[in-house]
């Protein structure tokens, strides 16, 4: 933590998490289903420490992107609360949503649709500082600086339109756009998923360098475990709108506790032809999020599922300290009734 430079906006001190989410919930109503809804995010609690990179992994449709939008109040949560640097978000004595958006920014996966096609990219970058009260020429200067910081010459690339840039260049512009307002925390929603592998590595290295330079906190959302491992300090594994496992990166990769995390890790393509994957570790699609299974949501695809998994909802254990590693699985819970439960 000592590496963090003093930031006058830092209210809570280094021990205060940058963002705390408590029991966030977002259900999207489905038309023509008789009042049913997709449980995109269903009771998610976590915290992001100052200066850390929190990885979020999970299959498509598990609620990762919804979670990202909830963190910025781009969509309103149905329930739960957010606490930014000690201040409850959008509640009377806390921090208003406008002020939150001055300190948290987001980079989306689709680098093309994240930029206005009719605007030269330097204007897209300058837009954030401009709406936050800078004069036009000041905002342009910020845009020039930020384009330089992401490795694009502002004289050559600034006046161009998004369609004149490559995917990697566009994503750099998006990063510059997100950083132009001087945020303390950046939510990266699959920022490298649409890029090819060599560009992906460049952008990841750029993100790491910028994080150090600007004292940023990242929430890094991805379905690519290798990428998450490269960039994250801690990881949050999601399945069907819930957190199934949460812990430090190395602990999760070396000692995964939840069968779903194990399956995800096992499904990574191996670089070693001798360890070729013969059988798919998880089969089938995730269950319908409109009617998730009772009890443990993973039980329909879990090789260890037993009676207890159907009746009782496993809880994510209490988190003690930043190094704690927890999983929502009956096998991890002493006396849960599962035959493989750890005996305490």
């Amino acid at each position: 933590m000592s590496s963090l430079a003093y930031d006058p906006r830092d209210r809570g001190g280094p021990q205060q998490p940058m963002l705390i989410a408590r029991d966030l919930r977002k259900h999207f109503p489905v038309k023509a289903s008789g009042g049913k809804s997709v449980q995109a995010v269903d009771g998610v609690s976590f915290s992001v420490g100052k200066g850390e990179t929190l990885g979020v992994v999970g299959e498509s449709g598990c609620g990762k992107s919804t979670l990202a939008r909830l963190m910025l109040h781009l969509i309103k949560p149905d329930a739960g609360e957010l606490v930014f640097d000690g201040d409850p978000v959008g509640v009377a004595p806390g921090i208003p949503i406008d002020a939150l958006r001055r300190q948290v920014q987001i980079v989306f996966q689709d680098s093309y649709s994240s930029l206005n096609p009719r605007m030269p990219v330097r204007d897209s970058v300058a837009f954030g500082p401009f709406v936050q009260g800078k004069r036009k020429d000041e905002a342009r200067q910020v845009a020039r600086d930020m384009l330089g910081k992401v490795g694009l010459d502002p004289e050559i690339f600034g006046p161009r339109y998004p369609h004149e840039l490559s995917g990697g260049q566009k994503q750099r512009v998006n990063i510059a756009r997100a950083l132009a307002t001087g945020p303390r925390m950046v939510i990266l929603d699959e920022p490298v998923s649409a890029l090819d592998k060599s560009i992906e590595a460049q952008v990841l290295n750029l993100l790491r360098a910028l994080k150090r330079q600007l004292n940023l906190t990242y929430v890094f959302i991805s379905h690519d475990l290798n990428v998450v491992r490269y960039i994250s300090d801690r990881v949050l594994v999601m399945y069907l709108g819930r957190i199934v496992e949460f812990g430090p990166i190395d602990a999760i990769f070396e000692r995964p506790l939840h069968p779903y995390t194990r399956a995800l890790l096992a499904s990574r393509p191996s670089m070693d032809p001798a360890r070729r994957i013969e059988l798919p570790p998880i089969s089938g699609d995730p269950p319908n999020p409109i009617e998730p299974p009772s009890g443990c949501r993973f039980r329909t695809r879990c090789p260890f599922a037993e009676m207890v998994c159907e009746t009782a909802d496993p809880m994510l254990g209490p988190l003690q300290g930043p190094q704690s590693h927890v999983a929502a699985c009956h096998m991890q819970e002493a006396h849960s009734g599962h035959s493989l439960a750890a005996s305490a």
Partner: protein
Amino acid sequence: MTDYSSVIPAKAGIRGDEVPAAALDPRFRGNGGVIKTRSEPFLEEQAAPATKVRGYWESVFHRLRRDPVTLVFAVIVLLIVLAAICAPLIAPFDPYKESIVGRLKPLGWRGHPLGTDELGRDMLSRLIYGGRVSLLMGIVPVLIASLIGGMLGIAGGFIGGRTNTAVMRTMDVFYAFPSVLLAVAIAGAMGGGMANGMLALSLVFIPPMCRVAETATTQIRALDFIEAARASGARTTTIIRYHVLGNVLGPVFIYASSLVSVSILLASGLSFLGLGVRPPVPDWGLMLSTLRQSIYVVPFVCALPGLAIFITSICCNLVSDGLRAAMDVRM
């Protein structure tokens, strides 16, 4: 303040710059299994060849210059407009001056290059003056409709939900009538005259204009850059002004330019039916209407107003087509 000790008292560890190779995927391995993280941003991108960068309108004109068909028709439209504006200067005769002797004379009769009409008035002068009314009736309703329809469409498209449904279903009611019928009905109900004709045409064009603007806005609204703008704290009006207008104006402008010819045709139709301009004001539609009884006497002279309408509207259409191509940024 609430006690959050139950939720992770976080104390994040920040990793060093150099990550041990064992922790990494092989494809990130650079030299000796240690990732080289550069503290300076890379400069490869700056070596990219410097191609000429054009502004938006500059690139539109650049593409237009390479499109001779559009250019030729644009020049014709420009000439027609100029002729209408400078009518008093170029018209050889007074368009209202009647002559009992010189009625329905063929082309070239006694210094009348295009002959005379049923009251002995010079056809060329009347056609030139008639262009004023026709162009005015072609452009003004489209402008009014773009403004009102565009605003309604952008508002409905951006707000979405029930507001949008309310706006668009109201438009659909107008849509249900054929445009000619609607224009005739409105103009008929309000009585003829140029102002009422323009009003009727404006009302006819608002629904399609609104739909074009609404479609474009709905498409734009779903894109991430709107969400990114909102995430940087921009208010709805700011987002519409800086991000939506620029993207919607293109389609609206192109559609409006194609409506000009329709408007000229409809206006001529209204005048033909006696619901537009009143005689003796020269107007192409009205001239066509009054001359049709004489079609067997001087057929070519009687067809001239129709020819003027045809040439103007087809030129407007072709120019709007060329603009559509030139204004597409992704070409």
